[in-house]
């Protein structure tokens, strides 16, 4: 039942078939309170401590729409080029599963708030159109943990429910069938997810952390014989929790469906579950829309955003992230290669921009964030923005380097101090005595001592072997505990031995 599917070579599938994908992306909003009640949306609280009669759907409770969630939905829709409905309703999606106590999810059905959009993303330098079907509002469900049976549903003895997440505002962003992806459908899907993640953060509506489930993707894929325009039978893969998985899951499904079709079989329309080990398995047979018996939610009144409100929200839209990257690259004078490095490090562009605003040169800001600090973030397995040093502190550190107080090596020790909670860079320099010794007398003394202790080497330098000076410079730097400007030491050594 796992990973035993017959797979066709990807290139072989590409030679005979076109791929059509469709992506349904769920994004949890960062509102303070839930979609219909005042319970907190904070992640990681004690089980069921963020619940009330509304989010548990107890009799007599009434939901009321969170205005900020509607605003966020409209801003997302506008950013994706969507029309905003003049009037729309919520709908009950009826299903019986314990992740919702109400036995229905409040969602939207045939009247989504936003519809008919389009975005263009860039994949390997080529533009790719992603048509957007709709963006609608709904609520998240509770979290289920299965007890017994190694935590899986099959064989579980029973399940435990935490409803803190139930009722958190959830946006569903649905594409139309995406065509024309050539051999790159998996890469397009991944790039589109990265685009959405960046957009959500730029809008400030969601942290969009896939590993926390803030952003989740269900991926539809079907194969169409080349030259045909009839869509093939699609499967929907769920449980995709990272950008890497989006790409891997689609590639797997393409190869699996390719094998089914090659041996003359028919692809079964079904939901499949992605497993991080690298394969999909058949999930439950999909309930049809009719089975959900959607009907207008009687407890919530219609949403009819005025055109004035929509115009106001349009005015709050940030610069599109892709355009911002192009602008900043030009402002900073980074090469394409340098910029790719920036883009490849999550959060780096914001941190560098803030560091530059705090007074540092762009090249210096990039150097600190993408080398020393990126290394520390990687070692600790945390985000660049969680390392524990602020852009202002990095700018302050660089200004200490610029004015000669610190060498890069000393600056690294200052970072240690800042991360250890010893205060601002200047405080760390003072407390740890890290400043470069600029007292020429002290330097000259150290140089004399090094020459006296290494007469043979000194003679070589006098005889014209300038490379030998390195050993003397090293001795001086060691004696000064690194608190000297190596270039100045070199000058002094050569002066004295000339």
């Amino acid at each position, binding site marked *: 039942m796992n990973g035993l599917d017959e797979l066709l070579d990807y290139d072989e599938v590409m030679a005979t078939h076109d791929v059509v994908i469709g992506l349904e992306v769920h994004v949890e909003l960062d509102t303070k*309170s839930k979609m219909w009640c005042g319970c907190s949306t904070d992640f990681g609280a004690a089980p069921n401590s963020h619940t009330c009669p509304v989010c548990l759907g107890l009799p007599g409770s009434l939901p*009321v729409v969170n205005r900020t969630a509607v605003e966020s939905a409209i801003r997302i829709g506008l950013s994706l080029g969507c029309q905003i409905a003049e009037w729309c309703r919520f709908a009950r999606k009826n299903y019986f599963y314990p992740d919702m106590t109400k036995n229905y999810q409040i969602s939207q059905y045939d009247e989504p708030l936003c519809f008919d959009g389009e975005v263009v993303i860039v994949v390997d330098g080529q533009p790719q159109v992603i048509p957007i079907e709709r963006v609608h509002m709904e609520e998240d469900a509770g979290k289920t943990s299965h007890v017994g049976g190694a935590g899986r549903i099959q064989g579980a003895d029973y399940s*435990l429910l935490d409803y803190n997440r139930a009722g958190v505002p959830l946006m569903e962003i649905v594409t139309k069938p995406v065509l024309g992806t050539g051999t790159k459908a998996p890469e397009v899907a991944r790039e589109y997810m990265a685009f959405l993640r960046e957009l959500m953060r730029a809008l400030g509506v969601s942290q969009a952390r896939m590993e926390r489930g803030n952003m989740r993707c269900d991926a539809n894929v079907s194969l169409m014989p080349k030259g045909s325009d009839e869509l093939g039978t699609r499967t929907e893969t769920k449980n995709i929790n990272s950008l890497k998985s989006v790409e891997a899951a689609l590639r797997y499904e393409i190869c699996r469906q390719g094998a089914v079709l090659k041996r003359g079989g028919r692809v079964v329309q079904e939901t499949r579950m992605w497993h991080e080990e690298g394969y999909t398995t058949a999930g439950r047979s999909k309930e049809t829309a009719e089975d959900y018996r959607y009907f207008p939610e009687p407890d919530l*009144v219609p949403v009819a955003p005025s055109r004035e409100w929509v115009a106001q929200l349009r005015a709050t839209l940030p610069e599109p992230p892709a355009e911002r990257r192009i602008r900043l690259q030009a402002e900073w004078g980074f090469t394409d290669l340098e910029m790719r490095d920036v883009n490849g490090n999550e959060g780096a562009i914001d941190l560098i921009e803030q560091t530059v605003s705090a007074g540092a040169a762009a090249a210096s800001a990039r150097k600190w964030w993408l080398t020393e600090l990126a290394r520390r973030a990687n070692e600790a397995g945390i985000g660049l923005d969680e390392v524990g040093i602020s852009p202002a502190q990095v700018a302050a550190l660089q200004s200490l380097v610029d004015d000669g107080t610190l060498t890069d090596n000393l600056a690294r020790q200052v970072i240690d101090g800042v991360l250890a909670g010893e205060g601002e860079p200047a405080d760390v320099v003072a407390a740890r005595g890290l400043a470069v010794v600029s007292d020429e007398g002290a330097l000259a003394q150290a140089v004399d001592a090094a020459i006296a202790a290494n007469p043979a080497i000194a003679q070589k330098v006098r005889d014209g072997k300038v490379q030998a000076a390195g050993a003397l410079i090293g001795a001086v730097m060691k004696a000064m505990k690194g608190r000297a400007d190596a270039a100045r030491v070199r000058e002094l050594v050569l002066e004295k031995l000339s």
Partner: protein
Amino acid sequence: MALTVQDVARLADLARIELSEEELARLAPQLDVILTAVASVADVAGQDVPPTSHPVRLENVYRIDETRPSWPAEAMLAGAPAVEDDHFRVPRILDEEA
């Protein structure tokens, strides 16, 4: 109207309610009577009456995004048939996705 035993069996399955053949045979006609009664509304609502989902014309009722204290977990769990470690405990779920 014709609500069949098969329709009711399907609904029962979706609602995770186990009904015996006898119950299905007894309930289907009863539910059919109810549906027929409700459907009689259609007799008086002509083409000039728009479908009405909300009895009162009201739009755009919103809350400001502010948190309010939740209820104590113990209070919310008090009505649960089974509780474990501050979670609602439910029977095992088979043949379903997480």
